[in-house]
């Protein structure tokens, strides 16, 4: 058990972050905090990709300037690309979410979910 | 098998007419003319195919062969004019010709709304009905079956009031449950079963049963039996088999031409026709015999027996229910329910004679029932009377109509020379040949004949042999089920009020005093006869208002406890206190006018648009009875059965059934 924790601590952290993110989405009253929870959830996934792609002693996947003697262990570029793309997607989603939240705040004057529900029910 | 466009043309003629009807919605005569023209054209096309089909040619039109479009993978959308198909199509199209005249008279007589929608839906229904007749496989028949449910819905909900909407909802629920659920499930099962066999998946009808299905059923008998019951249930909804029948009585809110042609001829007969196809051309008598059910405790029961039992139960129970209906159309609806079960019963007895009887009953019942409905409709248009209890003496006003009604009623009961006799005769012989437990079914047939008389004769009697002011009590209509408690003995206080011979004036006074106190008007009567009316005296001039007031009051009243309420306003046994048992009373204007029915001559009682069809169809019922083979239908029926069993009809009588069905399998 301890062995698992020390060698695969990133994966454990991954699930902790996933849990935290989901918890924030469900339990927070504030809309911005929900969005932060979503972000945390996505960040956890980035961590997942990175931890699976990590190679002990690997070098960056960049073609060196001059030839290299012998073999070089290179970390695969694919997960890094994946994470970069996913970060961009996450940014776009956060931007749209925040724009919606600003609009909701402008219309209803509150960022709290329970107040929002009551105000909407009154309409 | 000859490729021919005529089956498709027969179906499409009235579909084209729909467009023309809608386009001429501003010119009623032209619009009605399209209906008549389409009916004549349809009949003409079908008749043109008749001689060849009687000789054995089968005309076929297939979507895949004409256009290369496959309806579904491995399944073709095909129409086929074979003897059974042309049998039904001929009937439907012939009767439509006269119904279109009748419907015109009816709708104009009542000045109904949405007539364009009515006639367009009517044309569509006939298109779908002929499509069902000519369908060459289970999927095509399913397509037209669903379309028929759909296009008859606007006709059921025509009145657009709450009652019509509820009836429409019920109608859609029942027919789509039958069609979309049961029929589709059965069809899919059959497709799957036949695909297990090397001769490939097929759904096409074959006289004597689908061969591939017979082979597959040896391997998977349980699924084949399940498919059989699903198909019978699916078609049985439209054929009004109990307990799936209750939509039919409610559908009577539709205008009478609809009730007549559709709910006595096209729609319900398409259900019976579908059952005929299933028994004769999907499973076949041989396969049905080979798939007995294992009932614990009884042993092996033929697959057809449960169907026969349900049919026998339906025809008895529906006849009994019909006796208690005061609303004429509802009585006719329950009569239809019972008569359709004759067809199902005959088919499920599996003997060729019974099958011929069942098949012949399709046109026999159609002609007679259509006559009856047309009469009911013309009575409604001319006098706004819907309830039998108000029809006393109406024979004066509508002699031709009631004469035709008598003919139709005789046909229902199976009295020669009307057509109903021929079919019943064949079915009884068939049941006799089968022997054994089939005598029960013969018994049910005979019992129902008696019951038919029991519920039709009162109508004829009251129309011709009674008059508005002197007519008998009708305890069947008026008392609760099982009779009034006091007729079984009851308590002492009740005994005082039962006086079979008219009783003492003092007895009479007690009841009428109480009732007079409750009735709406307190009139001073000069004569004791008026003050203390006897049993059977009811509506007459001065009492017309109290009559209708009481009738109205008793409608909503609950008559279950009238036995121990001596002051209850039911005038003893008078018929004007009939509880309509939940029939919706929406015509408060029914019944004879204040000074009794006006005597009219047969030619002046109604418009010729309605009278001519009534006369023609009643005559047709008699013609069918006198010369059944001359009128083509019996010959077609024998031809169909010959095709199923594979031997000439004259020989079929001599061969025992077990040999017959093995002949089929060969």
């Amino acid at each position: 058990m301890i062995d698992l924790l020390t060698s695969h601590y990133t994966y454990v952290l991954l699930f902790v972050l996933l849990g935290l993110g989901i918890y924030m989405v469900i339990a927070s009253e504030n809309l911005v905090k929900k969005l932060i929870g979503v972000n945390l959830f996505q960040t956890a996934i980035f961590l997942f990709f990175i931890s699976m792609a990590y190679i002990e002693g690997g070098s960056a996947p960049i073609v060196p300037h001059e030839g290299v003697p012998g073999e070089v262990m290179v970390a695969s570029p694919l997960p890094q690309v994946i994470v970069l793309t996913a970060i961009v997607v996450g940014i776009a989603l956060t931007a749209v979410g925040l724009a919606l939240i600003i609009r909701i705040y402008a219309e209803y004057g509150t960022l709290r979910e329970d107040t929002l529900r009551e105000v909407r029910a009154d309409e | 098998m000859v490729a021919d466009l005529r089956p498709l043309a027969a179906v499409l003629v009235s579909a084209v007419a729909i467009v023309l009807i809608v386009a001429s919605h501003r010119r009623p005569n032209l619009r009605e003319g399209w209906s008549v023209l389409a009916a004549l054209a349809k009949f003409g096309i079908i008749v043109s195919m008749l001689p060849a089909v009687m000789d054995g040619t089968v005309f076929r039109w297939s979507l895949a062969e004409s256009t290369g479009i496959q309806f579904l993978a491995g399944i073709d959308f095909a129409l086929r004019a074979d003897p059974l198909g042309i049998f039904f199509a001929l009937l439907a199209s012939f009767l439509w010709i006269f119904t279109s005249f009748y419907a015109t008279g009816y709708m104009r007589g009542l000045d109904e709304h949405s007539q364009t929608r009515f006639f367009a839906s009517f044309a569509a229904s006939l298109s779908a009905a002929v499509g069902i007749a000519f369908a060459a496989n289970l999927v095509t028949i399913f397509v037209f079956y669903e379309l028929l449910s759909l296009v008859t819905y606007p006709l059921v909900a025509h009145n657009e009031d709450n009652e019509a909407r509820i009836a429409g909802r019920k109608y859609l629920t029942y027919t789509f449950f039958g069609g979309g659920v049961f029929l589709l499930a059965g069809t899919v099962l059959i497709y799957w079963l036949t695909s297990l066999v090397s001769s490939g998946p097929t759904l096409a009808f074959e006289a004597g049963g689908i061969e591939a299905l017979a082979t597959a059923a040896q391997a998977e008998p349980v699924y084949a039996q399940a498919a059989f019951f699903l198909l019978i249930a699916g078609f049985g909804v439209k054929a009004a088999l109990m307990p799936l029948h209750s939509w039919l009585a409610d559908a009577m809110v539709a205008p009478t031409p609809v009730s007549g042609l559709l709910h006595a001829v096209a729609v319900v007969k398409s259900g019976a026709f579908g059952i005929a196809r299933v028994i004769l051309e999907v499973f076949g008598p041989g396969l049905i015999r080979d798939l007995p059910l294992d009932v614990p405790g009884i042993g092996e029961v033929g697959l057809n027996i449960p169907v026969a039992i349900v049919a026998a139960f339906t025809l008895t129970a529906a006849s009994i229910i019909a006796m208690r209906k005061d609303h004429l159309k509802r009585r006719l609806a329950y009569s239809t329910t019972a008569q359709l079960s004759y067809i199902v019963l005959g088919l499920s007895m599996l003997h060729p004679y019974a099958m011929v009887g069942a098949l012949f009953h399709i046109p026999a019942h159609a002609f007679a029932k259509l006559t009856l409905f047309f009469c009911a409709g013309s009575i409604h248009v001319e006098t706004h009377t819907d309830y039998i209890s108000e029809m006393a003496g109406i024979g004066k006003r509508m002699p031709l109509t009631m004469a035709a009604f008598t003919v139709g009623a005789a046909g229902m009961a199976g009295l020669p020379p009307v057509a109903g006799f021929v079919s019943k005769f064949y079915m009884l012989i068939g049941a006799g040949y089968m022997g054994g437990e089939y005598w029960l079914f013969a018994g049910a047939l005979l019992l129902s004949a008696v019951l038919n008389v029991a519920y039709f004769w009162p109508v004829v009697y009251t129309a011709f042999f009674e008059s508005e002011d002197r007519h008998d009590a009708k305890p069947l209509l008026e008392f609760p089920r099982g009779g009034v408690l006091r007729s079984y003995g009851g308590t002492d206080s009740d005994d005082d009020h039962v006086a079979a011979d008219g009783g003492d004036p003092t007895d009479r006074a007690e009841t009428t005093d109480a009732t007079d106190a409750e009735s709406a008007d307190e009139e001073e009567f000069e004569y004791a006869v008026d003050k203390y009316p006897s049993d059977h005296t009811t509506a007459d001039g001065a009492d017309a208002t109290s009559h209708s007031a009481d009738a109205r009051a008793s409608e909503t009243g609950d008559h279950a406890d009238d036995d121990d309420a001596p002051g209850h306003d039911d005038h003893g046994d008078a018929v004007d206190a009939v509880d309509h048992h939940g029939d919706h009373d929406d015509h408060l204007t029914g019944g004879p006018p204040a000074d009794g029915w006006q005597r009219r001559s047969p030619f002046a009682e109604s418009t010729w648009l309605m009278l001519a069809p009534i006369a023609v169809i009643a005559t047709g019922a008699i013609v069918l009875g006198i010369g059944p083979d001359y009128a083509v239908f019996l010959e077609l029926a024998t031809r169909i059965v010959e095709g199923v069993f594979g031997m000439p009809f004259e020989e079929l009588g001599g061969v025992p059934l077990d040999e017959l069905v093995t002949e089929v399998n060969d």
Partner: protein
Amino acid sequence: MSSIDLLLPLLIAVPIITATLPIALGLRYDRTGWSVAALTTTGLLAGALALASVVYTDGPVSHTLGGYPIEYGIQLVADEFSTLITLLVTTVATGVLAYTRRGGPRGNTFYTAYLLLVAGLLGISLTGDVFNLFVFLEITSIATYALVASGDGPEAAVASLQYLILGTVAASMYLIGVAFVFMATGTLNMIELADAIPAAERPVLIRAGFAFIVVGFAVKVAQWPLHTWQPSAYQRAPDGVTPLIAALVSTASAYAFGRVIVTVFGVDYLAAMPNAASIVVTVGCVSVLAGTILAVIQTEVKRMLAYSSVSQFGLVIAAYGVVIAGSSETALIGAIVHLVGHGLLKAGLFLAAAVVATSYGARTVDEYAGLARERPFVAGSMAVLLLVLVGVPPGVGFVGKWYIALGAVQSELWPVAAVIFLSTMLTLAYAARLLEKMYFTPPLSVGSADAPGSIATDGGTADADDGFAGTSTHGNATPDAVSIGMIAIVVGFALAAVALGFAGGTFADLLEPFITEVFN
């Protein structure tokens, strides 16, 4: 042919590029949005037809972006399944424009989002890479959130935010699934995965990956109980937007789910995976039942149609389950046909609802009373579409249902078959309600209070009071706000739905090469 495979990246890139045009041109000219969108979608439709003509005669077409080898490059593939979806997307996108010209949201930014949505949908249909699928799923979703939120009033924003949060979590679930699969196999290309997954050393990772992917798609396709975003999103979105998203977004997600099942994981592998088939089948069947029950109790028409989508997609998901459980080819044909057919039907239905709402402000079932008299063509088309949805033959709904039911019976999955047969009755329950109201119920009281004063945005006259009036008007509700084009497109969808009802055999023939490839 070398040039035909260039069509694939063009189909995706062109709408992305032209999406910038309405904003760019908007600096100078007003109201360029619709024209740009119309030109683009028509061009895309032409391209899709050209692609279809090649794919259905010669076989799949593929293109690798940038020429990179597929181990780490992105491949676009158009096979028989994806071409069908591409055709659906381009057809509906073009068709809805007939409505939005006069009825829909105005503004150049709206058309930018419209074109981005189309680009994302085409990307989902044409991609051959699982991570690329995630990216396009998110592009589609972002465009959808923007479109939903473009409705009037704050309710649209709330619905959109709810959709955003749920949709993002769902896409992230999908991404976790992809991560697990990538961890086990090291490749992202769908065709390579088909070989690599059965050969993976650690099957537990593959199973975990599949589980996360199923959950992600269950939210995206709005299956019960993860459907809660859909009714509000469809209801609150502007009337011109709902046909587009209802017909296409969940359809593309369901397509992606199907692609993952049959191409990436493979039917045989999933059949051997414990519980995979039963979970998919159960989710589908429960959605069928739950969706129809929830639909029947709705009063608002768009909400009712949204729940109807839940149940119809339930049929598709149940069909996928039957494909896995019974290796059923027929069920796969049925799922694909129903996917396409349902897309057309919902597009038509929501367009009809939009026309009615625009002209009469009628949004609830009760307000539809007597519609047939006032709007015979729209009511007639709506009736036809509803009946085809129920499964009345001939109609594309019947064709899909037939194949799915046949597949279930052939695989001897009797509960599933029973649910499919019963779904006819259940769909009839809510369809018949609307039919009865339109045709057989007299209209509500004549003359609403504010009709004479309402303004038509195109300057038309306000004469909305001839015998039919909804009891509430939403902004500019006048019969003149409806153009012939709007009615024509509704009628067109209805006719297409019936015409495709005769194409059951054609569908099976077109998909046959794909089916044989999947099943051996």
